[in-house]
């Protein structure tokens, strides 16, 4: 599902950001290239989710600029680790929730519903459109959440570890699906899995330290979704080494 308008890039600048007394970011600048997927990789607690929230405008304290100079409001979609489906709405009604919340008129709503049906077909949930979320498996719910993110049809998509709660097989399938459906959009995907980042990202950035610093962009060869061939796995091992080395704690202490 290609976006209607060409997706702009997003530049994020954080002067200083402290959370619960800890200085998380200082002089941090993140550039999301237009129409590409950027994967942000780092150990837990480093502030990946916080950075994503800053990008989404859920937290104040960041200067956000779109590369086309237009305002950002109404151009961002967000997908969290948990599916955040409303349990009292059917899958289809969950998909068009954004339109209802914005008070869309009947015409717009009908178009959204049409789009929702198409996307449910794409994520393989067409049969379950009328089901309630608790009647679905975890993988199905996350697929519905992905479809909801796409129904919004925003050029910029921010994803906060959207696949980390899933089993390995379901995760693999959903990664392929997401890469395909998000093509052409500017995407920031936060993950703690180097392999996921390497499979899906046009660019992979690492975030580590306190205050957190961004590593230089890593651009694996080929187009995502990449298969996990030996070269990619070697890269994964290197990334893991690097990340583990940065925040190294004396391993012998615990043992």
């Amino acid at each position, binding site marked *: 599902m290609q976006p209607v308008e060409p997706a702009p890039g997003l530049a994020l600048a954080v002067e200083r950001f402290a959370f619960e007394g800890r200085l998380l970011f200082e002089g941090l600048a993140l550039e999301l290239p237009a129409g590409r997927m950027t994967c942000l990789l780092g150990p837990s607690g480093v502030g990946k989710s916080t950075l994503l*929230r800053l990008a*989404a*405008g*859920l937290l104040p304290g960041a200067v956000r600029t779109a590369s086309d100079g237009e305002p950002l*409001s*109404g151009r*961002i*979609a*967000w997908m*969290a*680790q*948990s*599916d*955040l*489906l*409303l*349990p*009292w709405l059917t899958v289809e009604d969950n998909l068009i*929730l*954004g339109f*209802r*919340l*914005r*008070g869309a008129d009947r015409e717009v709503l009908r178009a959204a519903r049409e789009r929702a049906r198409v996307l449910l077909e794409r994520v393989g949930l067409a049969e379950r459109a009328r089901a*309630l*979320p*608790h009647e679905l498996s975890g993988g199905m*719910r996350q697929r519905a959440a992905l479809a909801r993110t796409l129904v*919004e049809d925003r050029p910029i998509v921010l994803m906060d570890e959207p696949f980390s709660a899933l089993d390995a097989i379901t995760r693999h399938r959903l990664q392929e699906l997401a890469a395909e459906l998000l093509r052409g959009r500017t995407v920031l995907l936060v993950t703690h899995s180097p392999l996921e980042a390497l499979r899906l990202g046009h660019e992979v950035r690492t975030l580590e330290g306190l205050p957190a610093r961004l590593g230089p962009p890593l651009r694996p060869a080929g187009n995502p979704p990449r298969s996990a061939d030996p070269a990619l796995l070697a890269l994964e091992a290197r990334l893991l080494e690097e990340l583990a080395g940065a925040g190294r704690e004396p391993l012998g202490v615990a043992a």
Partner: protein
Amino acid sequence: MIRLRPLLVATGLLALWQAICLATAVPPYILPDPWRVARTLWTRLDLVLAHAATTALEILLGLLLGTLLGAASALLLAASRRARIWVLPVLVVSQALPVFALAPLLVLWLGYGLPSKVAMAVLIIYFPVTAAFHDGLRRTPQGWLELARVMGARPAAILWRVRVPAALPAFGSGLRVAAAVAPIGAVVGEWVGSSAGLGYLMLHANARMQTDLLFASLLVLCLMALLLWQAVDRLLRCLVVWPSEPLHPA
């Protein structure tokens, strides 16, 4: 077997009651045996039912008005910070007042008829409904609110389409409590001053040593309260079909 269990318990208790009456030979104006109560209920059914109708109307009106007022108050408290800081303390202090002590005043102000009993039921229902619903409205999972914000939702839409439905299970608990205490409000109101209703009939029968009639009225009141609770419970089960815990406490 499980469906029969309440019936078995009831039968057992009735048998125990009958046995105590037979064993102690207590005079019927102190403790009438169940058989006698049943006969009285049968012979005076018209009288008991007429009074029961009055009480039922008081309870239903009280429940309806109390729930509406409670729900409206909770919504106001959730929607406006100013309302919260001014009204919430008043609400809490008002609960420190024993509602029963207000009954004579209500009869004085609203008269012997229906309004004072309905007011009594409303007073007793109002707080549990308001407190439970308001609590539910405050505890909307953070993730849903953040999602709504990124989607560009209007605040009114967040309240109606996210916070209110999310608070329905909590509202339901408040309503169940309300359904259980509403009959108390109505009957206490009748005790203080009335010319109709099961509370009036019980007081009247008690004064004339017609203890069997008192028990018959009590029985009908119990049945009414049980039916009401069941009806409310059924209704809520239809309204809240999802598991009460959010799938992910995000």
